[in-house]
């Protein structure tokens, strides 16, 4: 074992970690916004519902890596050329949005029907009901699964390494190629991901317990 290699390359790995955090935050933000829109669209009917459902199924039932390949390597064939970072971000945003949409839909549908009926009997329109009655209650329920999704996304940013976006896994691979210290470097890379994800997991579990305790 050559642990001095790890010490010498730690600054470079931390630079990669920065890339991971940046990509993760970007995808979480964009994916959440788009996911809420798609999730609400799935409550609609007709074409809106069909389009939203197709989007959700396509991006949830296929591997993220295929989506990245399709957007990075496939779309240039029809004239859309994106650089690796943008392609990976777009693919991951769609992936995040499809999963967020299911969380949002699940949370809204988990509320008793009586909530809708009571709001209607008070004379609120559908939109008003959504805005003032349903969403305030549903939002709280989306929080734990949404944070769970964030942990998944943070781990999945590692897939961007396959199209050579600079983040932690890419940094790790480059150091391994240079130093051949594969065991040490991959262990440390894993540990860095763990330091990033574990606190998020613990916070998710705490929040879950608190919400379960509050909701009768």
């Amino acid at each position, binding site marked *: 074992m050559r642990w001095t290699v790890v010490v010498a390359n730690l600054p470079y790995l931390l630079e990669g970690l920065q890339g991971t955090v940046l990509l993760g935050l970007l995808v979480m933000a964009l994916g959440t916004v788009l996911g809420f829109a798609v999730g609400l669209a799935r409550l609609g009917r007709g074409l809106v519902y069909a389009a939203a459902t197709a989007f959700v199924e396509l991006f949830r039932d296929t591997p*993220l890596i295929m989506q990245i*390949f399709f957007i990075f390597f496939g779309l240039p064939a029809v004239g859309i050329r994106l650089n690796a970072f943008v392609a990976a971000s777009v693919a991951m945003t769609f992936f995040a949005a499809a999963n967020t949409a299911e969380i949002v839909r699940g949370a809204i549908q988990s509320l008793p029907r009586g909530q809708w009926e009571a709001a209607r009997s008070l004379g609120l329109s559908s939109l008003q009901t959504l805005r003032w009655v349903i969403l305030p209650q549903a939002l709280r329920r989306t929080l734990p699964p949404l944070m769970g999704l964030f*942990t998944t996304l943070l781990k999945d940013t590692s897939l961007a390494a*396959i199209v050579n976006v600079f983040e932690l896994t890419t940094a790790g691979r480059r150091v*391994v190629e240079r130093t051949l210290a*594969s065991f040490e470097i*991959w*262990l440390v890379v*894993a540990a860095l991901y763990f330091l990033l994800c574990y606190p998020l997991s613990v916070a998710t579990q705490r929040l879950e317990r608190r919400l379960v305790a509050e909701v009768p």
Partner: protein
Amino acid sequence: MPGPAQFWVDALPALLRGALLTLQVSALAIALAAAVGVGVAAARTAPLPPLRWLGAAYVEVFRNTPLLVQIFFVFFGLPRVGLRLSPFQSGLLALSLYTAAYNAEVFRAGLEAVPRGLREAAAALGLSGWQRFRHVVLPVAARISLPALGNNFVALVKNSSLVSAIGMVELTFVARDLEAWTFRSFEVYGMATLLYLALVLLLVWALRNVESRALAYLRVGER
């Protein structure tokens, strides 16, 4: 460059062969991950605290690090300590261990959801500890776990695509290879994506059948 029809005649068998290997590694990993998951869940609910800590550490480590890094660690890292595995073995091992952590949590929740009264009733009937577990707790816990377990299996099939990164010639690898040879990226990745979709939908359908059979007793009142 061959015409479109000829291209599909050449490409489809290769993609299907890749899909077959995806199916094989997924099926093996599903079985392994279920077995290891039961073991870890048992450790997590064991009466001995050190066992519980070990089980919890296993779950947290494997769930809070990326699968891709785990695959790289097994394939590139372990040979440095004398353990050299083929791409297939490395992929199978990493996929199984990773999914086992998620399975263990599902099993644990299933075990904890078995009503206390059932165990007490079984004890009152004079069943031994093992008999209570084997004939009362396990059948109920397994049924409670089934839907969430199915989700983990679907995720596993999708995650098996990562094994292409260390050179296992499954569906994703074949797609990359074909693309490198033919430059028909749009068609190749589109087709591979559809094949994954077909695999996943097939699995979902199969799981739904198993579920509806295993949970048939819940619908007695509806008939």
